[in-house]
């Protein structure tokens, strides 16, 4: 290390990522909150604010969304996962639907899977179980094929400390499927044994929640994304830092990375250059880097060093990003968001 180098310089020199570049963008119908891949990584399925599920070839010359089915949810589609030829979607209408990914036929429908909005779904790495979280503050586990309910777990308060309805936004499995993490509006993370539901750790990230007691008297924020490292040792928690004017998503994009089994925070990232909510997070191959995406009225894709959190590369996105899929080799990120999708090259 040269004596004049800063740690950030050194991290950048050693990093396997030095650029993030948007190679193409195209229009989507409505706000698109969730995306999952087909058999080909370029084939995407997504759920929209128009209540529908679509497929699209992101490598096509002119990508054109095609409805998977004539059937729809009754509100925004906010969670979508795939297990083989089955898609499972969740919605603010509280229902889960199992679809034939090819024909669009509805295989199963659980009308009241949650008593309030479903915020996100996650699928276990082996594709056998689906986890859903909703504003009834419940985590529910389902058989990915049969739609049978397997477990229901609580652990969260229904209301915030200030007496208002709370929300349970985020859920993620570990790479080995052994652990399941969830995160709520006030910054509480629970990590469970995904088979038994036993609580293994409880973490707090209270900065993700801004309560304004004086000027506006309501709140904003919450944990919006979670990601385990591939060795399951680290858990990244995404959201937004404290906000001055809570009329807008004006807080720094914020990530806290925990050695979750010890409960110690490894590092935190407050990025004030491109602000807003971190809506989705993933560790890259070998956990050398961590990619985050989200936004305010605009959007961002940012890559950080996985060990220290140093910014490696960053790009504005043409839309607020709500979700993305990362290719197996980490070279390509397919992001969806507010009325648009983008393909992002990571190099």
């Amino acid at each position: 290390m040269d004596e004049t180098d800063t740690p950030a310089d050194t991290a950048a020199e050693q990093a396997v990522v030095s650029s993030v570049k948007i190679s193409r963008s195209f229009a989507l119908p409505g706000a698109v909150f969730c995306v999952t891949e087909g058999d080909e990584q370029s084939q995407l399925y997504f759920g929209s604010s128009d209540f529908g599920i679509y497929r699209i070839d992101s490598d096509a010359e002119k990508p054109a969304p095609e409805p998977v089915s004539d059937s729809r949810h009754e509100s925004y589609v906010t969670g979508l996962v795939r297990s083989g030829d089955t898609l499972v979607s969740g919605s603010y209408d509280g229902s889960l639907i199992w679809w034939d990914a090819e024909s669009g036929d509805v295989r199963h429908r659980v009308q009241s899977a949650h008593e309030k909005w479903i915020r996100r779904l996650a699928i276990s790495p082996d594709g056998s179980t689906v986890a859903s979280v909703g504003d009834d503050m419940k985590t529910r586990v389902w058989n990915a094929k049969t739609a049978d309910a397997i477990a229901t777990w609580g652990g969260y308060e229904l209301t915030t400390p200030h007496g208002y309805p709370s929300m349970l936004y985020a859920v993620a499995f570990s790479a080995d499927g052994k652990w399941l993490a969830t995160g709520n509006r006030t910054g509480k993370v629970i990590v469970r044994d995904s088979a038994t539901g036993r609580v293994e750790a409880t973490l707090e990230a209270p900065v993700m929640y801004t309560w304004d007691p004086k000027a506006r008297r309501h709140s904003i924020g919450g944990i919006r994304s979670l990601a385990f490292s591939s060795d399951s040792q680290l858990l990244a928690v995404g959201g937004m830092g404290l906000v001055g004017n809570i009329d807008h998503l004006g807080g720094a994009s914020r990530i806290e990375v925990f050695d979750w089994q010890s409960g110690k925070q490894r590092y935190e990232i407050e990025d004030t250059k491109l602000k807003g909510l971190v809506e989705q997070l993933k560790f890259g191959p070998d956990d050398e880097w961590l990619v985050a995406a989200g936004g305010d009225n605009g959007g961002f894709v940012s890559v950080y060093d996985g060990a220290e959190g140093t910014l490696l590369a960053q790009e504005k996105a043409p839309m607020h990003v709500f979700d993305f899929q990362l290719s197996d080799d980490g070279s390509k990120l397919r992001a969806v968001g507010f009325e648009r999708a983008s393909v992002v090259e990571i190099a």
Partner: protein
Amino acid sequence: MSEPAEFQHRRRIQRDLSRRGFLTTTAAGATAMAADMGQINALQSAAVTQQLKQQGTRVILLWLAGGASQFETWDPKPGAKTGGPFSAIPTSANGVHISELLPELARRMQHTAIIRSLNTKVADHGGGASLMETGRLRDPGLDFPDLGAVVARELGRLDSSVPDYVSLYTSTEGRRKGTSGILGARYAPMFLSDNMIPLNLAQLDAVSTVDHKDRAALRDVFAKQFSKHRNNAAVDSHMSAYQRVRGLMASEQLFNVENEPADVRARYGPTQFGEQCLIARRLCEAGVPFVKVARAWWDSHGQNFETHQELCADLDHSMSVLLDDLNERGLLENTLVLTLGEFGRTPRINASLGRDHFANAWSCSLSGYGVRGGVAYGKTDAEGNTVVDGEASSADLFATVLQALGIDHEHEYMVGSRPIPMADFGASPIDEVLA
């Protein structure tokens, strides 16, 4: 939507009779009513409440500061591109649906009329608030009073020992004190911001209650001797001012919700807005004609749906309990409860999942006294972009509120030689929402 002229005429006569009856009763009973506010808890008895019911009309304005979304409250558009994620739910009024975020108010829709067709055009906070508070655009040459001051002037009693107009606005964003304008300081609001109990009303610690009463009695003796042979308005005014100050000092207890039974306080809930709604009920019960409770801040440029999940939950619970409480005490038939803000919010949902300012097609509500409950007046198009039926201006709304209270909206204040109508020129009350 218009009703037969004969019916309208009959209703106006009934209102006029009611107004005259109110004035007669007030003249006879006002001095006795709430003269000693230290006995406020006695007002909770059914007999006293019945007496109050016969004496006056009151208004509680729930000011949704920052601009609540009509889509997430009174004019839902489920399934429309602009409709957002919430569904519409049926209400106790046949055929009227409102947002699922207001389930408790939906069950009480028989008390409430909704106006869905406000087109007030002004979509900046200051201008919109001024417009909706006064019912007219700003006139550089005329400081027009806001609704609270007009109601205080028209429904308050000269010899009242309680405030005529109380305004609670605790949050700092968008805070406005209100104005009595040309009506003068007599009708300006008692404005409470940081503390819910008014400052400088309390008796000095150095003066005991006995001393305080003795001093007042001595002053009364001298004052009566002085005024015995003087039929003079100035002397009467001086006497009235002392009486009023004494009442205001005693009214401190009105603002203290700890004087309420624990179960009543629990019913209103833990939020500040709930507590302030309880204070509003106490003030109305004691004869305050106009109480404004501001609930800030609905300006949801980002995360509109989360913001409304929080704020609508607060509004739904607090207002529902308020309506129930007023109703159980027999006061709802004398109390008009309004929800209003400076404007609504855009049909377009922005990238932050927010809605921006919008004044071209939005909603408000009127509940209780003078209102035909269970009515949804006016209509917006399928996506809520424009009013397609029953367009109403701020002046029309102002006229409607005054008419509901039995006040002639065409009555004029004289500013020098310039006649100024209470509701702006061209205003027309919306008879369809009036009882």
